[in-house]
């Protein structure tokens, strides 16, 4: 499975395009990190890919097929989305939230079957949140919520997962836990596209990187090619030192360390 964007222009209705000429592709079993300063249009790009807002120009293909005329049902079979803000007004149980991921195959008039329950349970076990199943979604911590949303997206059985800042507002430990689960999803053969504010995340999961910049063409390539001291300076306007070292198994690791004068 391959998701490709060709010459995509994104904008909100009636406004000048936020992003121009976006070209990149993601294959299943691959992680693609979207980097870029605040307000550069990362969420807009996601919404365009998901057809939540109309694109102005260009084409989005999945396995060479244009998704312009796909129904929400068909879209949901291929792509799942975890947005940034998601707290329902009512205290749904965690297992009910995860089960909702099955709603595409349940469809409008159906009821969840045993198979749906089982898939939802497997997704919970996979994300390591099965011990929370009886808790109210509104009562659990931010990191747990993020994992619940990942489980819900996983229950949808998509080929591509689109995550909008999955690690925003998480403490250090939860952030690493969520990142390791995302890497686990990649190993399961799901293509992951995510936005993040930390270039380290891209190194952490050996992803490809799309770096968006204001008024400049985007950069697309492997993390080692795109995340350079010069590019970070151009995109964010700060000085960063790239550090390379070996972990205890002898693998080459990279990290960014900002330089504050």
């Amino acid at each position, binding site marked *: 499975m391959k998701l490709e964007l060709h010459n995509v222009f994104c904008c909100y209705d009636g406004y000048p395009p936020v992003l121009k000429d976006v070209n990149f592709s993601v294959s299943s079993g691959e992680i693609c990190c979207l980097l870029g300063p605040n307000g550069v249009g990362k969420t807009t790009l996601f*919404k365009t890919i*998901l*057809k*939540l807002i109309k694109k102005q120009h260009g084409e989005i293909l999945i396995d060479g097929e244009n998704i312009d005329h796909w129904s*929400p*049902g068909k*879209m*949901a*079979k291929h*792509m*799942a*989305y975890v*947005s940034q*803000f*998601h*707290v*329902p*007004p*009512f*205290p*749904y*149980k965690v*297992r*009910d939230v995860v089960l*909702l*991921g099955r*709603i*595409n195959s*349940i*469809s*409008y*008039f*159906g*009821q*969840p079957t045993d198979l749906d*329950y*089982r898939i939802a*349970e*497997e997704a*919970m*076990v996979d994300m*390591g*949140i*099965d*011990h929370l*199943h*009886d808790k*109210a979604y*509104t*009562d659990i*911590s931010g*990191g*747990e919520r993020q*994992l619940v949303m990942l489980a819900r997206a996983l229950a*949808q059985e998509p080929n591509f997962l*689109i995550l909008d800042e999955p690690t925003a507002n998480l403490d250090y430990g*939860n952030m690493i*836990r969520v990142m390791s689960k995302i890497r686990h999803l990649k190993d399961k053969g799901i293509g992951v596209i995510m936005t993040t504010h930390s270039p380290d995340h891209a190194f952490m999961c050996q992803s490809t990187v799309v770096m968006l910049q204001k008024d400049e063409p985007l950069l697309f390539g492997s993390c080692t090619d795109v995340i350079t001291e010069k590019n970070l300076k151009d995109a964010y306007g700060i000085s960063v030192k790239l550090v390379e070292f070996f972990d205890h198994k002898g693998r080459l690791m990279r990290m960014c360390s900002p330089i504050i004068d």
Partner: protein
Amino acid sequence: MQTGHDVINKSSLHIFRAEERHRTRRLLVISIAAFVLLFAFSMCLRTSQVDLISPVVAMQNLFTWLKLVVAKWLDLPLYLESEAIISKLPFYFETVARFKISVITVVSGMMLALAGALYQGVFRNPIAAPTMLGVASGIELGILVMVLKYANAAYSMTAKRYRYCYSFALVILLIVMLTGKIASRGKKFAVTDMLLVGAAISQIINVLISYYRFEMEDELLIVFQEISSGIYINIQTISFIILGVAFIVSVIPIHLLRYSFNAVCFSDDDAFTMGINPRIIRFIALICGTIMITAAMVHCGNVGMISLIVPHICRYLFGSDFKKIYYASGIFGGMLLLACRDISGLFYFGYSGVLPIGSIVSMIAAPIFVIVLLQQRKGWE
């Protein structure tokens, strides 16, 4: 988030699900039993004055009535003796009237509670009330015009009154929707705008109504009060037909979609990406909820408060899953409104002798609402 010894394996999750289903079923059965008891009790209330009759007499009356109805349909010879049979039974007509009133009350209560659950769900707002779109004011305006035009005759002109109430509710609803559409020009059809416009238009109509109320003669005022507050209830066949049609038309779509309503609980974007079009769901909920609330308030008076509290009670007892709320609010809505009706039939109040059901609903609902809100507040953040 620790994993390890407290990880539950898949089979025990499965058992848990079965247990939960069992618990929900048991709770539903208990509720239905309480409902049947309450209904039986309300059969023992007299309609003409505050008094109780023996349950045996009430049941006897009801059975005779059922027999006679069947006999009338099937043209059995029993029907010819009906007058002789009835004359032997004490309080026969009162029991039959009480039964019909109770049925209308229960059906109205069910519809109100369901409409409330729908609105709260699709607007993702725990205090969204289906009366917000102006139908309640529309109905009151309809009754007011009717009373001003026909005075006392308004009591007996059942069909005409329904035409007035329904058409006024519809007109106000259309005005609200059109104004809302104009107000949200440029954007997509924004539901919040519509609700705000609905509240504003309701207020304007209420000003109009209170002006006329102030100007009205006492006689007319009593007619208006009795009809609009649900003291006087029509129990002719036509009432049952209209209410029944409204009930069936609005409940069937909700019954079919009862699981899908959960999909809109997060956000529209989430629903879209999960493969469900939230606009279709919301549109159906809006239409069906409005039919429900209009029918219930035309037939049962101004008792909109039920729609606000029953879904909260159900959520507290059964959890947030809409499928359970759907069944539970039907039962509890009918039960609560019937209980209010019984209370209004059990005591003498004030100068006219009866306290309108709407006042009792508010009186009972307000403390329940406060309790439920306090209980649920931790869930909302």
